């Protein structure tokens, strides 16, 4: 890793930390937090889907009744994860008017991992890391013009180290 980039990154890091110490508010309703609270209220019905215990139930709670596989939903995840605690997943949509991306994990205790709202000015191209309890399918669903499109792929979770 080039040293220049490291130093620059650290500068950003430190700046971020300073601000964090200044404005972090525990359970406060600071001005900056208001947006989140508003968003919560608007999207409350979706919150319920995170408590679903199966993919089918999560889709029902999200009112996703009809979903078709699409090659324009580009889901990337490793074939094998050395540890299920961190499975990198990225989702990109080539479908016009994509306005939401859902990430679900089959056979997880709570399969719905994330919903990302693709607002104006945001590329439908996100990545995050998820936990997987066992070998299973990662499912990406994209919403565009009120219709749902899917991609999925299997990720094998391995047991590691001394196992104890």
């Amino acid at each position: 890793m080039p040293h220049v980039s490291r130093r620059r990154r650290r500068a950003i890091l430190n700046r971020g930390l300073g601000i964090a110490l200044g404005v972090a508010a525990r359970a406060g309703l600071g001005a900056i937090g208001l947006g989140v609270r508003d968003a919560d209220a608007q999207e409350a019905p979706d919150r319920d889907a995170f408590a679903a215990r199966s993919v089918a139930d999560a889709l029902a709670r999200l009112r996703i009744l009809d979903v078709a596989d699409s090659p324009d939903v580009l889901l990337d995840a490793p074939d094998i994860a050395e540890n299920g605690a961190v499975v990198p997943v990225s989702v990109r949509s080539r479908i016009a008017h994509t306005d939401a991306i859902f990430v679900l994990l089959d056979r997880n205790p709570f399969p719905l991992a994330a919903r990302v709202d693709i607002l104006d000015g945001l590329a439908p191209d996100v990545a995050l890391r998820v936990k997987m309890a066992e070998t299973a399918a990662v499912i990406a669903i994209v919403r565009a013009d009120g219709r749902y499109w899917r991609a999925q792929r299997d990720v094998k979770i391995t047991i590691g180290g001394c196992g104890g």
Partner: protein
Amino acid sequence: MRIRATLRSGRIEVRVLIAHPMETGLRKDEAGNPIPAWYITDVTARVNDRIVMKTAWGTAVSKDPLLVFHVLGGAVGDRVTVDWIDNRGDRRTDEATVVAPASP
């Protein structure tokens, strides 16, 4: 939080690392007592005060979460603000300035 915001090919790549336990509520501690669920439920990102991304999370997001997203347009010097709230009501806000990619 560690926020890296880099202008690449006409869009801002934002990489956010958050220190958070993201407890599922299904684990037990060393003494065998259940560890209560404790996880981030919502993350919002702004560029110069305009909301560009909202995401809602469940317990399946990894501990110390990473989130990567891309904002169309933007310029070096833009301010990217990220805030999160968790199921306990804790919240936190950090910000970073958009930079040009480091020379290779």
